[in-house]
């Protein structure tokens, strides 16, 4: 019995200490969401905490859907979301009494990657649509060596998945909405996806350029809006091509957002200010994403 008492006492102490934690002034910022942004956010958090040791920032990935869920359930201060919120989600947020406020933090291009041994260099959006919806199934239809196309994609909670669906699969002259082919292999992270494509000669996948820019074992394909348009490659010599992504000349460019519940104040506001400051945007550049404003990378 004394053993049990001791345990009860320990438990009591623990809960008591939680309460103390709650009252103590040490500030915690919880961030959840997009896997695309998780590494970037980590770096922001690291540098920010160096300057402000009184703040502790916790970062979790899991996908943009996770971020939205966290915002609605009020389990995070900041939700990383690599796309704009859908109308349905804003409506849902209102039901939960949450008012999501959007902050742009960086730009990103979605790169299409294939195996370096693949001879295909550029693809149009229509081709991409037909590839990922499963209508084009062989590389020889695209001018490559014959072989079944193997699709690699992300979990349906990821912002990249949604963005790709809305900007590639939904673009059509006939306006028809397509789904991803059910045969698309779903990997648990962009890193695993790059790894798979680098090993699979027939593979094709997509993801934020930050994950691929430095890699030699995957090839980034140029993308054009229409077959007759000029094709753009978001990465030149392991360096994101800032211009075409920021100007949205590259068709698969997007903003990366963070959302807060209501207009941020205090510690959260400070952190967001930091992200959008020059220091924060330098980190964006270091991580192979595209800074919000030209001035942040021009003067180097």
């Amino acid at each position, binding site marked *: 019995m004394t053993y049990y008492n001791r345990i009860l006492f320990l438990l009591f102490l623990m809960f008591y200490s939680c309460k103390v934690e709650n009252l103590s002034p040490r500030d915690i910022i919880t961030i959840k969401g997009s896997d695309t942004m998780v590494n970037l956010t980590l770096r922001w958090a690291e540098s920010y905490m160096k300057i402000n040791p009184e703040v502790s920032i916790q970062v979790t990935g*899991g*996908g943009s*859907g*996770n971020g*939205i*869920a966290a915002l*609605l*359930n009020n389990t995070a201060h900041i939700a990383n979301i690599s796309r704009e919120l859908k109308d*349905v989600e804003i409506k*849902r947020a209102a039901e939960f009494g949450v008012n999501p406020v959007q902050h742009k933090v960086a730009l990103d291009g979605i790169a299409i990657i294939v195996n370096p041994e693949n001879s295909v260099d550029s693809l149009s959006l229509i081709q991409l649509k037909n590839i990922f919806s499963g209508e084009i199934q062989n590389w020889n239809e695209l001018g490559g060596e014959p072989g*079944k196309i*193997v699709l690699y994609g992300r*979990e*349906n*909670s990821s912002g990249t998945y*949604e963005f790709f669906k809305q900007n590639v699969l939904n673009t059509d002259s006939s306006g028809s909405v397509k*789904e991803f082919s*059910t*045969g*698309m*292999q*779903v*990997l*648990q992270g962009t890193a*695993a996806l790059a*790894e*798979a494509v680098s*090993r*699979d000669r027939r*593979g094709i996948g997509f993801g934020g350029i930050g994950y691929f820019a430095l890699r030699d074992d995957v090839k980034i394909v140029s993308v054009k809006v229409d077959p007759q348009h000029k094709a753009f490659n978001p990465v030149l010599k392991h360096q994101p091509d800032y211009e075409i992504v920021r100007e949205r000349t590259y068709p698969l460019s997007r903003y990366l957002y963070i959302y807060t519940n209501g207009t941020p104040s205090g510690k959260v506001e400070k952190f967001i200010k930091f992200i959008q400051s020059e220091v924060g945007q330098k980190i964006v550049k270091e991580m192979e994403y595209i800074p919000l404003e030209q001035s942040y990378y021009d003067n180097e």
Partner: protein
Amino acid sequence: MIMNDKPLIHTSNKAELNRIKEKFIEIFFRLNGLFAAILILLIFFFLIREALNVFMLINPFEFISINLKSEAVYEWYPTSDPARYSIVPLLIGSFLTAVPATIISTFFGVVLGVYLSEIASTGVREFLKPIIEVFAGIPTVVVGFFMLVVAATLIQDTINPPSRLNAFLASLGLSIIVIPIIASLTDEALKSIPNDIRMAAYSLGASKWQTISKVIFPTALSGVSASVILGFGRAIGETMIVLMASGNAAIITVDIFSSVRTISATIAAEMGEVSVNSAHYFSLFFIGLILFAVTLLMNLLAELFLNKMKKRFHLY
């Protein structure tokens, strides 16, 4: 054990006090014991409670197929519009990884179990048995990691399947976990056969192989079956290996070299990311309930087989 410990005489107050104390201690223990039983009811209750909510939002038939443009669609697209919740591809995925894994593991596991119980010398057995038990305890995430990073490339270079990550790769990974389970349980089933039976066979002039194949194995068949069933239950509920190695494409196929999406991997991949109390959230509980029911069934079956075997030995 002693079933009745009421003191015959209790006269002094102290004895009375002691009796009350004993009573309290017993009640305390009983609460703990009952809690374990209640826990399983709680799991059942909470799964069902959350799972049944789904029918307020989704028509039950939608879990089989949904009509889109007057065409029955069997797809798992819970975040699309309109959302599609067909569990058919997931069920197929689960079975397409668990069944081959069970077949592979049954063969190797039973052989290994027979070796341990009937052929290996006592020294070898005492050395191997713990090692095999340790294999069964390898963290599954490590197996998944190994399949994803090493074995996937190996398989690709040798067999060159259409998908790098596929059901076959996942079932190989599952086998790493299931073989030791089946081997260990088979060994126990064979060991539980009274030695007299072996002696009887030998004394009739049977060789070792004849004894094993004609006498021991048939006698222990229900025990071996139970071990296979338990192995299958383990394989179908396993998550990390299939999450990392199966490719997670929710397609309807019977090709073992195509990638598939299992029930367990779907829950693992999507649960952390749904908003609470949405149709998607409840539907994940619903497929969890299905998984629970399947494993429950397997456990009961195994129990049945084991009982059968126990009964048989009372006859001898």
